[in-house]
């Protein structure tokens, strides 16, 4: 069953203390070529029936993101599509 993924990220101009903390820690791990880290939320929504993008958008808008400081994007993902190398 495909699921809906909502990515919620702070707007680009908003301070992201979480990303900044990670970026600052990287040199400690010997990583010096990262210029920026931004951290947001990834929300996976499974519907009991057909996945409903409009519904998901409504949920994101009302519940998952605060439009004052966050943007979100929505997409359908196949359940077993790990979108990359799941480690």
């Amino acid at each position, binding site marked *: 069953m495909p699921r809906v993924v909502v990515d919620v990220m702070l707007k*680009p*101009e908003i301070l992201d*203390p979480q990303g900044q903390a990670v970026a600052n820690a990287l040199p400690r791990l010997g990583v010096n070529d990262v210029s920026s880290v931004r951290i947001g939320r990834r929300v996976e929504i499974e519907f009991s029936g057909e996945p409903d993008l409009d519904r998901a958008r409504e949920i994101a808008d009302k519940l998952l993101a605060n439009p*004052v400081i966050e943007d979100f994007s929505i997409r359908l993902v196949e359940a077993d599509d790990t979108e990359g190398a799941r480690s």
Partner: protein
Amino acid sequence: MTTQSDIGASEAAEVTVPTGGPVPTPRIPVPTGEAAPVANPVDAAAGDLADGPDTVQRAVGTPDELQPYPELGLRDDEYERIRQILDRRPTQAELAMYSIMWSEHCSYKSSKVHLRQFGEKAPPSDRLLAGIGENAGVVQISDELAVTFKVESHNHPSFVEPYQGAATGVGGIVRDILAMGARPVAVMDPLRFGAADHPDTARVLPGVVAGVGGYGNCLGLPNIGGEVVFDPCYQGNPLVNALCLGVLPVDRLQNKAAAGAGNVVVLMGAKTGRDGIGGVSVLASATFEEASEQRRPSVQVGDPFTEKLLIEACLELYDAQLVVGIQDLGGAGLTCALTETAAAAGTGMRVWLERVPLREPSMEPHEILASESQERMLLVVEPEKLEAVLKTAEKWGVLATAIGEVTPAQADGQPGRLLVTWRGHTVVDVPPGSLVDDGPVYARPMREPADLILLQADRAETLPRPATPDALRETVLRMIASPNLCDKSWVTEQYDRYVLGNTILAQPEDSGVIRIDEETGLGVALSVDGNGRYARLDPYNGAKLALAESYRNVAVSGAKPIAVTNCLNFGSPEDPGVMWQFAEAVRGLADGCAELGIPVTGGNVSFYNQTGAAAIHPTPVVGVLGVLDNVAERVPMGFAPTTGAERDLIFLLGE
């Protein structure tokens, strides 16, 4: 900052709330390269005048250029004054600065004439090391030690984004305390929400509580008390006030004066971003496409970890005597810090704005000056100590950057000027005192609200009283169940009361008690109280009652009350009814303090707390601080468990 923390520079212009509303109409014609005289060789060399910033040079050459001052909340006569002071039109950056510093928020233009009473009526005190006008009042409590405390509001941001609004409210008041040379040691949070069962309260309250807790807990400051009050009048305008208490050795007291020509001006802490620029963005709307409004959030995001580092770094700098002057950056950002520090010393200042570390490289000069980015402090440092300062900052992992230097007063003894350049362009050249001290002052019209007589006539005595045991039982149950009287632990359990290990009393006690000196047991007690319903019925006595309640709470914990802080939450000062309520409340508080013999040492005014034309109840929140020579002698509120035959006796005092 000595400003009203929650009312942005643009409050009067009402363009801040980011509801995705229309972009304000641009009023600035885009200047063309040819039209501007290219007289300044530096400007000319920069070679990008058409797209460059509005310089002093250009301002001189284009005296008739239309400027969007009304959108920035400045009145015609205020704008005229600015032109007189500068003897030309202000540049964009200067206009932004004046609009910020002359706003209600920073200039106290409507409240000033009333607040004077706090000083005039105050009893003489030899304990007061710093009083009204400083970042926070400082009170000596022993030969070596002093405490500082203050309450501020962050009401409007907390309605828009409850978590971050409340969090940055705590962050702001903590920096005020830090700027006095004190280590912050406790916080309190008087809160007002709409009806407990209103759906929006379910959004606002949990967010505010989590924000107060999140920031305070992460800074390691115990929360030792506060208030949670529900009333429909706060539905569209909750009150989020935050109090911070700090401790300092008497000889570590800091001040904000940028003394000593040649000293270096250092910006320490977070990078500067487009936070809370709000109304100032109208200045850019001519050069940005429509979407630009989107890029200017009015809500700041707090970073308590950076603040914690800032605290430790500052305290280390104070102890090593490495700073001459220090000022926190609050609601009015660099504008306020630069002008206040220079004005306090009568010196001038030269600032290279491009040295300010930016989160977004595309920021323009007026945006950098107006940014409300959190977790920043401005230091004035002797050149030979700069390296040691930068080292300390590095040790704690906070950014510190020399952005300018203190310049001498003028040859004729007149104060110096604040000169700000940006990539070689002179964008600001002003007398700093004109922004800080020469702002407008209004004696606004006042009129007793027309409905007051009716309200007062509807006396409590006329209400039906429970007459039967059943009715009495019913009344008691209703009271117990009422949100205003119920147990507050859902809120207070989200706050760390133990951290720092000096909390002697906290929730649910009448006042919070903090041990200041582990050796001697010296400590202080603090309570914050307010009752908007009383104040609505009678602002003069309502304010007195708030003071009396707070005073009593401190006294019954075993402490001797010695100082008062306050946060005056009111509707629009342009409404004569509100202004009357304000004047009465201030008069009541000042009289009450005189009667009790303790001074107001500081506070904060928050106006424009209203939804449309409906103002909140006038809500003066009063904090009283008392001293305990030995915290072991504190009196907790509960009856002590009885052992054997020794039973506590119960007395009722008073009428």
